[in-house]
């Protein structure tokens, strides 16, 4: 595609909010550095250690479950935002993923409630 043609293309479509492919190509490259990845890795290891400790801690049942789910959620989010770099990427990827992840969470929670999985 010639530059002239490309500019024309932007003129045509730019106003309708279609991204500039030249910029999009660069946006894809803004990934965290290796140092940042290692830092996240260390946090994940610490959190996992904490999880295992919690599991053995003998805390009251409700608190224990709350803590374990909280920790798992933090780990989940850290991996998704940094290692899968949704934090740095186009929001449309996040929208796709959230639709699936949150949708699954809500739907299956309703299924478990319908089947009275938490009763007693």
């Amino acid at each position, binding site marked *: 595609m010639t530059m002239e043609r490309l500019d024309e293309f932007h003129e045509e479509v730019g106003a309708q909010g279609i991204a500039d*492919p030249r910029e999009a190509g660069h946006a894809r490259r803004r990934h965290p*550095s290796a140092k940042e990845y290692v830092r996240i890795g260390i946090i994940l290891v610490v959190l996992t250690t904490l999880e295992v400790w919690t599991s053995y801690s003998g805390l009251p049942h409700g608190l224990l479950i709350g803590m374990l789910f909280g920790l*798992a959620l933090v780990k989940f989010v850290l991996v998704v935002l940094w290692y899968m770099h949704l934090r740095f990427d186009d929001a449309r990827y996040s929208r796709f*993923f959230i639709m*699936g992840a949150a*949708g699954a969470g809500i739907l299956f929670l309703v299924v478990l409630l319908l089947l009275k999985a938490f009763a007693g």
Partner: protein
Amino acid sequence: MAETTVHAAPVERTSTGLPSVKLAMWLFLASECLLFGALITTYVLYRGASTTGPYPNEIFDIRYTSVSSFVLLASSLTMVLSLTAAEQRDFARMRLWLVATAMLGLTFVGGQVYEFTSFYHEGLTIKSNLFGTTFYVLTGFHGVHVTVGILMLLSLVGMSWAGRLPDDQAFPVEMVGLYWHFVDIVWIVIFTVVYLIPQAKPAG
């Protein structure tokens, strides 16, 4: 470390400016959330519903599985390090980290095979009770996903080594990486739901 070097990738002209493969990968992963969601739901529904043993608290060795979890977490780190290397066009280092990731993945699957075998010898089969049924199928599905990931990683190494990857090698590495990390976050949930939360005393 210095700012990641930017190399002009062949930009496809797409309506959103986003690469189609990456959109497809995210949609696929979103769809996979429903798959694992249904499997985990089944496990949660049948927690403590087994009418005969062996029960989870007699079988699980949390320390052993924790090591497996650390291995899988480490593989996620090596995976992103391989991506960084690919973005810096250091393809030898990229392949090295990919092989490391695959090896860690193999260790995880190997650990799972060992775990399954030892549970089997302790009398837990897929037919024993609802715990056996749901445990083996849920973790088995995850294991199959890890195995597929290993195949993709090794293919990537082979193709990169044989010069069969496109110039922008970071892109396929990123895509396989997304899948690999997804398998990792599924394990984060499984580890919590299946292993870490202590089972209530068996019914009856």
